[in-house]
């Protein structure tokens, strides 16, 4: 190992933002032909580090070396010119242009008078696509491709230059298993060509399948680099969060209370049909299904964002019609929405104002908002949920995903809801906050809250729910008690496969 020169070496990289030290002395190196995993919870500094590497941020300290030379990444174009390529999690393609145009954007081959040499462009592109063994050609419009194929276009783009290092940022987030195989083949090819690869992912099984070494960040600090072969999932997790994780199942042992919510024959056009269920105080009811199964739409109906076409909603035994979110809130319904940044928070607003937003009309001193009462509420839920922020004045947008989610949860807990609906409570947040939120949901049930949890993650649903409602294509397929549920039967139910035990 010692005689191989790393293609890329980071030394003591430091980057600070107002109130946050995002990177604090991060050093690691990537060898040619190595797949190097970069792991860490959300907010640990992975994205910041990649932006430093890509020339989008300038580090406040430290140095980047390529081969023997120290380099300065003054901007994205310079990073590309130096052979550092990025395959982004969020795709940055022009949907209306062809595959070829996207791949060679900015560097289209030219003929005289600046005209594009289409023949050459198509030829070059098809040569690259052939290497990737994909089913589309150079002239396909990118908007017509699946997400996985769009990702292939991004990879093809990386192959057009003489890449020395390629960074994959959560590349499998939206890929099917078959598509993953193709991606891993491509990575193996790059590896054979001596390219250094940084692979960012939360998915342990992938990390152990394809990477050679793993570097871990926590709170902006470099935790060390280990050989993948010498590590276990547990040891990596411990490096990432500094302690162990509990993912056991967790049914209630306390008495259940009254029925807080009952839904009878509820339908909403084509979104979901004839849905029946009830939620009692003191229990967590999990809603499991694929994206588009109608779970979020049921939550939105209960929160007054959609009008049901048929059926009844009963709160504490009384039939109600919920016309608006304000209506839902006044009836004691809280919804922690699935899209934290788009629906949960006003990112430019401070933490306190975000947290008290639904009750700002009730917190009054004369005609004004009682700011003292607001700070008291913020302090209370900051302590209870262990929200890490420099103070209530910090903009919500500056917090990590986990802390943002805790602000949203605090916002709705502070309303003391009769029914708490949580949609994808831990999507895109770090492992540590995740287990804290799971624990919180169990505690809330124990305190007598009625909780609905919508999740696409099976371990999460299994871990937090007393009962699980499996949905498929707008219908409730089956309701499981936590003792009887198996992963196998759950998967069958949400895939629409018949199960003889179905009720």
């Amino acid at each position: 190992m010692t005689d191989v020169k790393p293609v890329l070496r980071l030394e003591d990289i430091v980057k600070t933002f107002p109130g946050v030290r995002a990177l604090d002395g991060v050093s690691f190196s990537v060898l040619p032909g190595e797949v190097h995993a970069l792991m860490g919870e959300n907010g640990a500094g992975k994205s910041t580090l990649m932006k430093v590497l890509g020339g989008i941020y300038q580090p406040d300290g430290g140095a980047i070396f390529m081969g023997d030379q120290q380099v300065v990444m003054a901007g994205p174009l310079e990073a590309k010119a130096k052979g550092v390529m990025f395959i982004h999690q969020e795709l940055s393609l022009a949907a209306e242009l062809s595959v070829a145009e996207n791949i060679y954007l900015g560097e289209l081959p030219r003929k005289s008078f600046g005209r594009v040499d289409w023949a050459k462009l198509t030829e070059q592109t098809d040569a690259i696509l052939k290497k990737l063994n994909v089913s589309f050609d150079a002239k396909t419009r990118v908007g017509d491709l699946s997400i996985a194929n769009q990702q292939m276009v991004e990879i093809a783009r990386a192959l057009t230059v003489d890449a020395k290092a390629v960074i994959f940022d959560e590349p499998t987030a939206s890929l099917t298993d078959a598509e993953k195989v193709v991606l891993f083949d491509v990575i193996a090819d790059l590896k054979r060509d001596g390219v250094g690869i940084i692979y960012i992912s939360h998915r342990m099984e992938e990390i152990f399948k394809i990477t050679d070494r793993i570097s871990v960040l926590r709170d902006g600090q470099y935790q060390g680099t280990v050989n993948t072969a010498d590590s276990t999932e547990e040891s990596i997790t411990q490096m990432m969060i500094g302690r162990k994780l509990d993912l056991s199942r967790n049914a209630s042992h306390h008495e259940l209370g009254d029925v807080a919510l009952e839904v009878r024959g509820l339908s909403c056009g084509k979104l979901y049909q004839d849905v029946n269920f009830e939620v009692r105080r003191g229990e967590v009811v999990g809603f499991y299904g694929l994206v588009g199964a109608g779970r979020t739409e049921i939550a939105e109906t209960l929160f007054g964002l959609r009008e049901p076409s048929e059926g009844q909603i009963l709160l504490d035994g009384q039939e109600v019609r919920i016309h608006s979110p304000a209506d839902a809130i006044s009836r004691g319904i809280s919804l922690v929405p699935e899209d934290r940044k788009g629906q949960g928070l006003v990112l430019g607003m401070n933490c306190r104002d975000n947290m008290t937003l639904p009750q700002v009309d009730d917190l009054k001193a004369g005609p004004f908002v009682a700011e003292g009462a607001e700070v008291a509420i913020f302090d209370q839920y900051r302590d209870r949920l262990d929200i890490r922020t420099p103070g209530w004045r910090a903009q919500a947008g500056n917090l990590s995903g986990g802390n943002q989610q805790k602000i949203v949860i605090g916002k709705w807990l502070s309303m003391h809801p009769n029914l708490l609906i949580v949609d994808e409570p831990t999507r895109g947040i770090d492992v540590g906050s995740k287990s804290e939120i799971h624990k919180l949901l169990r505690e809330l049930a124990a305190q007598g809250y009625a909780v609905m949890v919508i999740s696409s993650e099976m371990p999460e649903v299994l871990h937090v729910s007393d009962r699980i409602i499996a949905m498929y294509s707008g219908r409730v397929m089956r309701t499981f008690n936590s003792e009887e549920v198996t992963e196998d039967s759950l998967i069958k139910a949400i895939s629409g496969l018949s199960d003889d035990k179905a009720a």
Partner: protein
Amino acid sequence: MSDMSQNASNLREGMMASMSKQQIGRVLAKQGILIAFAVFMIAFAIASPKFLSVDNVFSVVRSSAIIGVMALGVTFVVISGNLDLSVGSMMSFSTIVVLDLHDKLGPALAIPAMFAMTLCLGAFIGFLVGYLRLNSLIVTLGMLSAIHGLTLTYSGGQNMDIADKEGTWFSVFGQGTALGIPVPILIFLILAALLGMVLAKTPFGRKVYAVGGNGTAATFSGIPRARTVFYCYLISATCVATAGLIQASRSLGSQNTVGQGLELEVLAAVILGGASLLGGSGTVFKTVIGVLILGFIQNGLLLMGLQFYVQFVVTWIIIILAVWLDIAAKRGKLWSPIA
């Protein structure tokens, strides 16, 4: 090893230096508007001794009052994430209507009648933008033209004059003084204090920021988005009516085009004050500063002997600079290939 620790300490020192640079940058970004104001004032004061004389300062603030009063209302609209380009022609409407009704109904009835009519226009815009969710740029640009047509129809294209200019108490709003301060300045300051408190301290103000910062998240928090935007346009219309009242009272006669082009000056003042056109940020106090900067710059240019119409070009340059510095402060660089 010792080399490495040497390296590390160098880095740390470098970091300290860059941190203090960052802090300076942060202060500049946050207080930039006040600093710019101070710089302008000092520069003009050196260039022209008359600039900071009491007479001149009063005259600037008084002539800024009309722009200023309208800018207060537009601040609400901009923070709610919308635009109001109709304020100029709406002010022409208010001015013409109140002058016409002055002689027909007497001032005591003319003023409330004019406010009611102007508020109807504001309510109409608020309905289109708030409840129907139409793009505010299109709606208010259209209303700029439509209200101009309405004004001309109302006046028959004639200039409007009060018959008895000497014998009316109506002139107090534009020409009077109270406690030694010109009434237009008083109206501006009182309205600014009032609306400043509404925006900064009341639940409604909080909702305006929430709706402009992230309308979807506001909806998911039970905030009535449409109604909040609607109220912002009502506030804007109230301010426009007040500005029309000051204008009518000052001149006691007016052309149909008295407010023409003022919408851009108003918008310039609001943006200069640092309200983001994306919504969700800005304050009334900053808008007042923006109004004063604009007023003093225009006045300073006149004192330096430049032609009056140069100010139209200068206003545009100021808008561009303000918008540029605003995004530059956000991304920490004057230019960047990414947002």
